[in-house]
């Protein structure tokens, strides 16, 4: 048992902390969210230079990409600083390619992503499909060795900034385990249309309609018919990492609230000295402290190649409720000021709501956990 980050992980965390404090101010975040602005090239370039867009292309890699545990240390700071989600969707796509792309794809795409030259996002879910790909309706027909993809995708993140989309489409008309494939589709392809959604988290999500979009056969990620496995593996990683992100955000909410209630005086004493207030804070702290262990445990097990379905679902179920409940209580402890847009709290409340649902609600994961318990 060892609950300390390694020196490398700590270094990443500390440098992220410093970098965000300087480069990712809340003003910038507001500007991005309120006006749906694209993240500036300069910022993206800097994080590319810091090496944060490179993921290891294989588990026993000697390349320079970040390992999952290093990503986790980074994600915790991202959560604390409300990193725009284009970072997460890019890393998700990179992980997807690293997990299962063929050699050519890895060589072509991963360095380009790592260098900040291209951004990729994943288009999996549909109006009637959140988790179970057996219900996927987007189809890819093969004609003369080319694929033609048609369908409707919903809740696709960051299409505004992405250069490519990884699209899940049905290549067999049955519910076999090999019926679905992933296509790397150039966003500029003919036949794609986008409509932005207005989201609670003020992150960028869209509806994407694909109308007979032509895709060359070599743009299938990995092998034809392997999408289910690839998505499962990638989702495991992105879910576990997201849990750490959420821990980072929740910790910041607790810090912010503790600061406020120490200073806010009513009835002649800091409200942080009231027992009811202290017990609220203790609950928040316990929930998030527990989340911290479960989230890192999930990433750690993944990175060690150990079975981890149980741990990922447990982590997401727990932090999924805990982050949101922490923001709800933080609003209560802040009173009026926490409710004002000029204050930062609501930015976290927005993110907590989104992340509580994204990659599966707590109730969804409790049921998955029950499966894993053999029930």
């Amino acid at each position, binding site marked *: 048992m060892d609950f300390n980050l390694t020196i490398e992980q700590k270094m990443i965390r500390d440098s992220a902390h410093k970098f965000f404090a300087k480069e990712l101010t809340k003003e910038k975040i507001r500007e991005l969210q309120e006006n749906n602005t694209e993240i500036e090239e300069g910022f993206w370039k800097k994080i590319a230079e810091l090496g944060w867009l490179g993921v290891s292309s294989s588990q026993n890699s000697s390349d320079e990409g970040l390992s999952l545990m290093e990503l986790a240390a980074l994600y915790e700071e991202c959560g604390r600083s409300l990193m725009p989600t284009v970072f997460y969707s890019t890393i998700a796509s990179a992980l997807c390619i690293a997990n299962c792309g063929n050699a050519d794809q890895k060589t072509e795409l991963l360095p380009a992503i790592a260098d900040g030259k291209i951004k990729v996002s994943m288009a999996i879910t549909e109006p009637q499909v959140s988790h179970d790909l057996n219900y996927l309706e987007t189809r890819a027909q093969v004609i003369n060795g080319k694929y033609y993809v048609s369908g409707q995708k919903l809740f696709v993140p960051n299409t505004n900034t992405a250069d490519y989309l990884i699209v899940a489409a049905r290549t067999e008309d049955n519910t076999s385990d090999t019926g679905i494939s992933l296509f790397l589709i150039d966003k500029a392809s003919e036949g794609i249309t986008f409509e932005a959604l207005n*989201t609670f988290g003020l992150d960028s999500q869209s509806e994407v309609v694909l109308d007979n979009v032509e895709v060359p056969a070599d743009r299938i990620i990995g092998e034809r018919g392997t999408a289910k496995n690839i998505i499962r593996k990638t989702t495991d990683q992105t879910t576990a990492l997201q849990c750490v992100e959420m821990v980072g955000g929740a910790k910041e909410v607790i810090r912010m609230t503790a600061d406020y209630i120490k200073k806010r005086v009513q009835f*002649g004493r800091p409200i942080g000295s009231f027992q009811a207030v202290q017990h609220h804070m203790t609950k928040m702290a316990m929930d998030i402290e527990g989340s911290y262990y479960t989230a890192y445990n999930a990433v750690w097990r993944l990175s060690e190649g150990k079975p981890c379905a149980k741990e990922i679902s447990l982590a997401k179920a727990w932090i999924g409720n805990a982050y949101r409940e922490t923001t709800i209580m933080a609003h209560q402890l802040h009173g009026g000021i926490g*409710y004002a847009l000029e204050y930062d709290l609501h930015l976290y409340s927005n993110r907590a709501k989104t992340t509580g649902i994204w990659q599966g609600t707590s109730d969804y994961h409790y049921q998955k956990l029950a499966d894993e318990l053999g029930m």
Partner: protein
Amino acid sequence: MRFEFTEDQIAWRDKIRDFLRQNVTPAIQQEKRNSDPITNGPLAKAFLEKVKKKGWIGIGWPKEYGGMGETMVKQFIFLEEFRTAKAPAIGMTLTSLAPTIMSVGSDEMKKEWIPKIVDGEIELALGYSEPDAGSDLANLKTEAVIDGDEFVINGQKTWNSEGHVATHEFLACRTDPDVPKHKGISIILVPIDYPGVKVLPIHTWGDVRTNEVFFDNVRVPRSNLVGNLNEGWTYAMMALNLERFDIGSIADVRRLLIEVVDFLKSTTVDGEVLSKNTIVRQRVAELYSELEICKWFAYAAAAMIDEKKFPMKEMLMGKVMGSELKAKVGDIGTQVMGLYGQLRQHSKWVPVNGDVERLFRVAPLFRFGGGTNEIMRDIIAQKSLKLPREGAR
């Protein structure tokens, strides 16, 4: 015991319901969504004119002021029907401030102000909170000094929700700094267009605009004093109790939950109709149960008022439960929608017109507004369970 309305009450409810069915159009509801809940657009104004014509402005008011002198249960039925219909609300000026003036104001004040309030010529903003006087309202520092026939007012109010739409502040001021805090406060009606009053907006997470209001040597006639000098604390509490009642009403939330159920019934995800998911069913049933219980607190309080009892316990419990339910229904109501639950108002795919997610963002206000729930819980324990006060806060 009787857990249903009487025939007379049902007839009253149906009358209101009919009126609302005919007059609350989707356009009015949409207008309401597009503005903050306090600012009435032209459709809402026209609608409220019709309400006034029905004679429904002062249902509980004495008949001498143009009211109907009706029971609290009937007033509450009225409030609930309006909420259920997502109708524009009759403002606090009419529901809680005018009744306070009627009850404690001088004859001159009543004669001069009440008709103007009824006409809509005067709208009041609640001027209580200050930067250092939130939960600890008695700590307020805005001072009104008597100078001849006038008060001279200096200070600052905050979370002044109606500041940008009202004509006057219903302003709590310190008029005697040398007595215990509660005993040196008076309520003064202050025209917002007077020199020295400045209103600055605060925009909030729930899309509701509120304000900071500054008073710089504002001079107001002494006749604008409500009731007696230095008895403002009592009057403020009177109005606040009515406001808590208001917060305890969750008819709008009950309507929303039903709309959530409709969405769940008509939406299939991952091969399952959402309303058939056992956990979703459980969550909805739990929320429904709490809403029902909260309803009983409010009905019991209303019935007790009509029996000339003071339903402190019932009102406080209703306030605490109702305000926390708003957050819960907003939160769990979006949760059970899955990915659709992370959409915001005005999105093509957003369920229930975004009213559920909006509720989640508006909800915090009710938990600390009208007295924080922590303090409400202290009071319930101390007054209703008779636990000792010593050192409790």
